[in-house]
């Protein structure tokens, strides 16, 4: 991760008003953020916390009431920033009467890409998101997962430096969720900067380097995920093949040193891991009941 700041907000605030200019809701209050090149940054918070508003302000879809949002050092309202930016909205807001090919061709043209470059890029992306067989079908025939994938493809059509993902795993099944997360990590490996917002904590924890937690439009926490999650006054011991005697001995040692034993038991895997293991096993041995350990 470099120190180059890709995205910055300074006392960014947004007040939604009604037709008569009266204040309806203060969606964001004085947000200060910096996102550096190459990191995966997560905006975390419950519904209505201001995550999507922040993304929309950074994209120039909304105008700030106060403060400013800078992308690549330029105001968010500057259209030129979009040359280096990709955006996957919460729902894939795409033209449903277009096919996947036509969709990517349309967005490619919006980047003023020459025909041959566009053609090549479309083929790459269609293959990357696994829609080769459905590329000639209209999007209105697509499942939710397929729509998300073509949505991601359109966000990557220009090979962007900065990718903004609004609830990227929303509506995806566990496999789709994992694929999306893998994709985010792959993009990170390619040196892309990614800003995502989500209220699914596990997703954010799995892929983000740093997170900002918002609540009621205010920044409540900001930092590296591993540091934020670290519980400083608890020590974790993980070991395999310990006998009952050995476990008792450990309890005695902790007690001798006036420590408080919180738990000493066998760990469980996550439900996501269990599900994925079952699916993998089922695909490897179709027709048989999965035997996951």
């Amino acid at each position, binding site marked *: 991760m470099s120190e180059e700041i890709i995205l910055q907000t300074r006392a960014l605030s947004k007040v939604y008003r009604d037709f008569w200019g009266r204040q309806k809701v203060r969606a964001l209050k004085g947000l200060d953020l910096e996102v550096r090149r190459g990191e995966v940054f997560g905006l975390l918070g419950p519904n209505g916390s201001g995550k999507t508003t922040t993304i929309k302000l950074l*994209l120039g*879809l909304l105008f700030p009431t106060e403060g400013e949002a800078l992308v690549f050092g330029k105001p968010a309202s500057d259209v030129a920033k979009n040359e280096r930016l990709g955006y996957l909205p919460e729902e894939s807001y795409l*033209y449903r009467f277009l096919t996947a090919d036509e969709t990517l061709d349309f967005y490619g043209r919006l980047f003023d890409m020459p025909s041959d470059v566009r053609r090549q890029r479309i083929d790459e992306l269609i293959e990357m998101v696994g829609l080769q067989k459905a590329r000639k079908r209209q999007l209105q025939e697509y499942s939710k997962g397929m729509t998300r994938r073509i949505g991601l493809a359109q966000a990557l059509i220009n090979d962007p430096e900065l990718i903004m993902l609004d609830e990227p795993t929303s509506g995806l099944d566990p496999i789709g969720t994992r694929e999306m997360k893998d994709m985010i990590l792959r993009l990170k490996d390619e040196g892309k900067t990614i800003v995502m917002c989500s209220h699914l904590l596990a997703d954010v924890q799995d892929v983000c380097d740093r997170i900002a937690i918002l609540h009621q439009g205010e920044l409540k926490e900001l930092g590296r995920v591993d540091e934020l999650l670290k519980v400083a006054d608890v020590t974790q011991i993980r070991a395999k093949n310990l006998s009952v005697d050995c476990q008792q001995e450990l309890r005695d040692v902790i007690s001798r040193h006036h420590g408080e034993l919180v738990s000493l038991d066998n760990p469980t895997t996550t439900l996501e891991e269990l599900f994925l293991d079952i699916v993998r096993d089922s695909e490897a041995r179709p027709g048989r009941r999965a035997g996951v350990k």
Partner: protein
Amino acid sequence: MVVEQQLLPYFQWLLTGGENSLGALPSFFFVFLGVAMAALVIGFAIAASRYGILRGGDVTYKTVSEGLSELLQTAPRRVWAIARLAIKESMRRRVAVALGVFFLVLLFANWFLSTNHQEPARLYLSFVLTASTYLVLGVALLLSAFSLPNDFKTKTIYTVVTKPVRAGEIILGRIIGFTIVITGLLAIMGVGSYIFVVRSLDHSHTVELESFQVVTGPAGEDAGKKGTTSRDAGHRHELTLDAEGNGETTVENGHTHAIESIGENKYRVSPPLGFIRARVPQYGKLRFIDRSGAAKDTGISVGSEWTYRSFIDGNTPATAIWTFDNVSDAVDPKPPEAERSLPLSLIVRVFKTHKGVIGQALQGTIQLRNPESQLTSEPLPFDAQDQQVDDIDIPRKLLSQSRQEIDLFKDLVSKDGKIEVLVKCLDRGQYFGFAQADCYIRHPDGSPIASFAKVCVSIWVQAVIVVSVGVTISTLVSGPVAMLFVVGFIILGFWRQDFVDIATGKSYGGGPAESVVRIATQANVMVQLEDTLLNNLVSGFDKYFAKPIMWAVAQTLPDFRSFSTVRYAADGYNVPWDRVFQDVTVCLGYVIGLSILGYFLLRTREVAK
């Protein structure tokens, strides 16, 4: 007649304008400047109310400066991408249904249209072209007003504006896309209409042999035959054949037929000729001499409220005089030089104060005069048929009033190419009515198909303006509101002159506020309102607020009625190229102006909610 106002040559119209009007280009810049200044003031006021005066000024400045630089960065590929999207969207929205409706209308049109009419071509052409106009305008309205609002509603606009697309490209691309759709629709409707008219008017007759009367020449030789055709399509023609049995029929219902002998007592009658024409008139300037012999700008009024035509009284010195420029024997260059004539067309509006002789047309005379030497030809009599276009070919060899043989082009045309045409009415107590466009030199007809295509261009121009307005206003408001706005725009455009007359105080009854008072108090427009405080306030409001705003709005309104060239085709006149170029230029002005306006409207609104 269709040309009621003088049509200026294109470049004169564009740059300098006429006697009482500014050139189109300077007018455009003045209006553009006015709208820009108004937009700047309103924009600053809104920004200042939101952010305070200083920051509001900064925001306004940045919006304008960035906007101008972005306008220069318009990329054709992006514009074309949006245009293609608009075309696909139109197809998805079943725009082809309009074609189905159109052909359905044509299928049932023959129930209501009759070929048994004095001028069936006028009836058919008016119908199909008017139907095409309304359908195309309707499609333009629906496509343009709902497209962008639908993108906002479905949020697909999010994925577009987060690409490096300038707001102007979104506007221009949509205008171009919908224009292409409308062009396709109009092309199909135009071809369908033309085929429909030609096929509907097509008919033939047979020659009725029992009606033949032999015509003999001066020496008693057989000079041919006279007779009639059979009665078909509600009419029959008189016919004249030469000694070989070939000839043509008289004009009935606006057409003739050629007749060819194909054997003994066997004749082939051609399909109708001259139904659809594209006359190319050269207009002169009209002035009058009244019954006392005094020169006047207009004739007398016979009580008609429409002052377009004025009248001369019969059997008096009253004369209508047209002066034509650039007259030479090259007007109709086909015949040999010695046989060339001056083809004139004359339309007479007959006003009778007594019934006269039943079945006998009123008589008039035509004389030609050299405006320099005042040499005048002997009067040529003609029968006046009310509101009919009478084609009169004035022969080259004429007699002067002193009965000396004179040459039309050498003796009656002045050195600078001018000639005067004098028309009088001979019947006492009867009147002939004329307008400037009622007498013209008839150049060889243009192509009816080309003229028909030019009428379609005028419909296209109206549709493109509607599309531009629809797309522009839909950046700001929802689809139904945008549609209502455009409908209002079209209605105001069709009645622009009335709107201007109210704004400038030419109409009786005051402005909008005074009208409300008059409606509420049941005072008609001719009644003077009482001198009360309320009435004075209302009049003041109209005078200093409503009317100036109406006047300003009127400057940006297109005169839709003046765009329509349907009457050219219906009346059988060629649509002049100057007219086509002027209309297309106006259209281009609207597209440019509205694209810029649309750019700023879209640029300054929040796309998301």
